[in-house]
């Protein structure tokens, strides 16, 4: 087999994978997943406001509910010290 043929076969396989990923996105977006329905019901029933992604501090657990000082509240001149603070942007309302 010529080298270029091997290359084209590899390229074809990769392109098929690439297109398959886009098709996967289109299919998943068109479906209402049970997890989404379950979560939406809970959000509307309990009035939830945030994702339970960063549970280490209250301003990272509920970034949308946190006030501007919460990350630096421990004592005067306290610095924000939770690791998530470096990943998470402060809530939109508290930005200048």
């Amino acid at each position, binding site marked *: 087999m*010529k*080298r*270029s043929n*091997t*290359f084209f076969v*590899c*390229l074809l396989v*990769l392109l098929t*994978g*690439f297109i398959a*990923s*886009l098709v996967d*996105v289109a299919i*998943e*977006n068109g479906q209402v*997943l*049970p*997890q*989404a329905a*379950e*979560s*939406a019901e*809970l*959000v*509307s*029933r*309990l*009035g*939830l*406001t*945030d*994702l*339970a*992604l*960063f*549970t*280490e*501090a*209250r301003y*990272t*657990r*509920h*970034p*949308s*509910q946190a*006030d*501007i*000082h*919460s990350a630096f*509240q421990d004592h005067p001149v306290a610095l924000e010290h*939770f*690791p*998530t603070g*470096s*990943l*998470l*942007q402060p*809530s*939109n*309302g508290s930005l200048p």
Partner: protein
Amino acid sequence: MITILRKQRYFIDYTLGTMMRHKGKSLGLLSVYTMIIFMLASVMLFSHAMRSEAVALLADSPEIIVQRIQAGRSVMVPAEYLQRIGKLRGVTEKRGRLWGYYYDPAVKANYTVMVSEQDNLSINDIVIGAGIARTRGLSVGDYLTLRSHEGKAFSFRVVRLLESESELISSDLLLISSVGYRRLFGIDESYYTDLVLSVRNPREIQKIAEKLTRLLPDSRPILRAEILRTYESLFSWRQGVMLILLLGSVLAFVIFAWDKASGLSAEERKEIGILKAVGWETGEVMRMKFWEGVIISLMAFLIGYLAAYLHVFYTSAGLFEPVLKGWSVLYPSFQLTPSVDGLQLATLFFFTVLPYTLATIVPVWRASITDPDLVMR
């Protein structure tokens, strides 16, 4: 047309042959290049999917939440604020919410304790999220002991577990009755954590928020649009230790690739000289090098992107978990819905494939316009 295609194929054949002669170098470059694209694409896919997921999940969150701010901190809201708000036009429902946090020293985790009226829980009943159940090893019928504000131990019976499908929003939730909540935290009947207002017409929300700040000057209304905006900018590209670390490796790669692509070795110069001497034209030498750049960068892009796609959507972004987890004990286990932003994907393509391909051509052009005899010396 067929002749042109056939000619390009010969170029590819020749280029692949050259690359195979320097197998170690070519494979090394391809794997480093693929790794960089994998990392960049993983961050890109993960942050986009997380944003989409959050915005979709929180679409039904309360229209307006009213907090009370005292000396720059959120404090409990007196129940009489509900009367002070009175009847605002457009507000269909207003109620007080009771929620807070409980630090469990046994597992060093924070629970989000929330009152659920709809669950009709008795004073000793609780409903817990899948994360708490997993961490504490609890199931229905088990007891969880929490220490009250007075230091007394309260035992609560787990009557239900929240479905693990909703773990992304409920992993650390602990639902409790209002009497149980007030007794646990020592909060009397005249206070709520915050107030929730339902508004029928979304266009009136801003106006109602303005009225609220006039009626209750010490209050801070949080609108649903603000919650969604917070999550739209959740993982900003400007933020993040992960991205700063990644930036270092990207820069290292740029230097490596630039050095490899733009600085021709003596051997490569000699090769170009020989090709010119046996009759290759400048354009043909450049096309050969162009194919080298395309083969490396296109393969790296496709392999890197596909690996990132599988990593983020089919292995729950396992490599990012330690970074995202931080000190969170109750990290939820969740599967993201596949979603790709076409613009981001195109940007990644243009910023990775094009610069490398172009960087390979320029020095070759410089070498190939020089006299072959001079180049070979």
